[in-house]
């Protein structure tokens, strides 16, 4: 999956419009987040958030069992899936048992992680993304480029074109110079019709409250609420780390999540689902299913450094503050969670041997770790994964050892730099892709150590 990362990065860097979209949007998000935290003591709140999430990790199995018990008491069906395959099959079976034909889906990272859309479509079940951004991305057969703003890489002109190409005439073709509001209007019309017809809704969960068996979802668009409240069946997918003990922890985490993600004090909606439709209620799903997904998370749990990954609340702040991501955009990553969090999650889910160059796309500058609202020390985790990756590759170790030989002794180092500076004076082919945009650095006429030596000699003479 990540093997082509390098190629996609080069593509992304040569796409000017992509870069402009990204820089603009990322600067905007960074600013907004900064403003949103101004009314609060970020550090204090953040350490509260980190404590809460660490406590969850400490009590994870018990909390999960409690969550299951409460949910069952409330009439919610609970399923456990060990991997992506099993999770997909569970959803497929729920759909088939109920003769579901049309599924609407709210935004859910974990559903992308397990590639649920593809699975359901292969079974002949249509699965429509209902988040406007995700829908746009789905129409164009792409993957989302940002976990909070999936279509951020597209301009409104590109979207107008896409709607004009792909949508049914009945919805009215948007003109080329359509405004943002007009485009959203067209998108809404299409989606509302899908909502009416859908017999099953799928969503993610931001926090699952163990004490009461309540599933909490944040959203800015009504579609999340529609996916969970209009169709007759609601299936909620949850990574096993998303559980929290009680309502008491919710306010702190919510504050951190909304501010970090989109710089909002509060999202438009916080949807809290505790049971299926009750007796005499007119609406709401008659079945609610909760699928708790492991998919390698328990393996992360077993490593005391990597374990920290599980405290992530998927806010995206690390990405918006991440210099590499703000330049190449999310598509270069080619998988579900782009940015620093991707660097630490994907290798763990897909296996470190598939990580390729992904782990190297980081300067360990620490910007992501500083932004993280639950104080995950992302650079440390990335370094740990790099260590693991390197230990798998014998040539790396050999090269490293040779390097060490030269850098450990001043003499050998001086010898090496002389050799290198001599070589670079020889006419040599320069790598094309690289020198297209850069000039090859010229070595200084004299090396640093020679300069020092000379200066010392001068000093001695003048004494």
């Amino acid at each position, binding site marked *: 999956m990540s093997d082509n990362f390098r190629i996609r990065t080069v593509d992304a860097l040569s796409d000017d419009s992509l870069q402009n*979209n990204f820089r*603009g949007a990322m600067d905007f998000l960074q600013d907004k987040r900064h403003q949103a935290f101004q009314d609060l003591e970020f550090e*204090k709140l953040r350490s509260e958030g980190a*404590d809460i999430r660490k*406590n969850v*990790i*400490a*009590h994870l*199995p018990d909390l*999960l069992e409690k969550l*299951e018990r409460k949910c069952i008491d409330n009439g919610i069906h609970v*399923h*456990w*899936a*060990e991997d992506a395959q099993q999770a997909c099959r*569970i959803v497929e079976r729920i759909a088939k048992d109920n003769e579901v034909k049309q599924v609407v889906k709210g935004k859910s990272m974990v559903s992308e992680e397990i590639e649920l859309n593809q699975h359901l479509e292969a079974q002949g079940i249509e699965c429509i993304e209902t*988040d406007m951004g995700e829908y746009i991305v789905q129409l164009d057969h792409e993957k989302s480029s940002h976990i909070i703003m999936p279509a951020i890489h*597209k301009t*409104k002109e590109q979207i107008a074109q896409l709607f004009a190409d792909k949508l049914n005439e009945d919805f009215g073709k948007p003109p080329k110079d359509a405004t*943002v509001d007009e*485009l959203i209007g067209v998108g809404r019309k299409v989606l*509302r019709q899908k*909502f*009416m017809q859908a017999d099953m809704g799928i969503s993610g969960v931001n926090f699952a409250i163990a004490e*009461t068996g309540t599933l909490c979802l944040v959203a*800015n*668009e*009504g579609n999340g609420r*529609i996916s969970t*409240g209009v169709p*007759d069946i609601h299936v909620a997918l949850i990574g*096993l780390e998303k559980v929290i003990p*009680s*309502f008491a922890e*919710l*306010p702190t985490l*919510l504050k951190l999540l909304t501010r970090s993600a*989109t710089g909002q*004090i*509060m*999202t*438009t*909606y*916080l*949807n*809290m*689902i*505790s*049971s*299926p439709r009750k*007796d*005499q*209620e007119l*609406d*709401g799903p008659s079945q609610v299913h909760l699928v708790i997904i*492991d998919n390698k998370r*328990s*393996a992360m*749990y077993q490593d*005391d450094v990597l374990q920290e990954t599980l405290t992530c609340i998927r806010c995206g702040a690390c990405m918006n503050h991440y210099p590499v991501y703000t330049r190449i955009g999310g598509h270069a990553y080619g998988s579900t969670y782009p940015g620093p969090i991707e660097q630490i999650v994907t290798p763990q889910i897909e296996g470190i041997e598939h990580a390729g160059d992904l782990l190297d796309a980081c300067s360990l500058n620490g910007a992501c770790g500083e932004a993280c609202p639950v104080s995950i020390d992302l650079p440390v985790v990335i370094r740990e994964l790099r260590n693991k990756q390197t230990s798998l590759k014998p040539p790396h170790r050999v090269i490293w050892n040779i390097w060490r030989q030269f850098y450990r002794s001043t003499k050998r180092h001086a010898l090496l730099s002389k050799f290198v500076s001599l070589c670079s004076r020889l006419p040599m082919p320069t790598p094309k892709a690289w020198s297209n945009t850069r000039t090859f650095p010229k070595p200084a006429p004299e090396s640093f150590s020679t300069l020092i030596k000379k200066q010392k000699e001068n000093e001695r003479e003048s004494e």
Partner: protein
Amino acid sequence: MNQSKANFLNRLRVSQQMIESTESETEKKSAINNASGKEVLTRLLENNRAILIETDYKELAQNINTQIKQLQPVQYIVSEHPRLKELLGNELTESNQCKLADTWREAKQQLFEDIELSICFADSALCEQGALLLKADKNQPRNLSLIPETSFIVVEASNIFPDLQQCVQSAHFDTRNLPSNMVLISGPSKTADIQ
């Protein structure tokens, strides 16, 4: 399937012993007091493009009537929430008021296609979040505040809380008997997806 559950709980339990828990009771105090609360609530709601109307009990129904006259929805619907009924009496314009059908299949169609405006009741308002808490039950279906383009949400000033924390701890929030669905709403639906 139970095998899966046992498997993955086991995997977690193996390593759980090694993690120390950091039980810390930080004192949680709201930065907002009652006086500034309403101001914050107003500011946040208005920032989110919600329109605020302050009114006393006597003029509530009349105020809503004026709005309805201006907006001229083809049809509108009023939640059957008992407190809301009490507050509104029989004073709302009847001509374009409608009732929902008995089955969800038909009611859904009404909500999506005919009803342009709804009037609902919020149990409480939260200043710090700038949001209203609505509970779903047989009198107030959850989709009432969601599908119609415009929603009027009535909240009583006596039900304003400084923040979510205090609301959750209050009698308003009976964790042993939660409604099937609750929602915090801080403004009309929006998307930041097209720029």
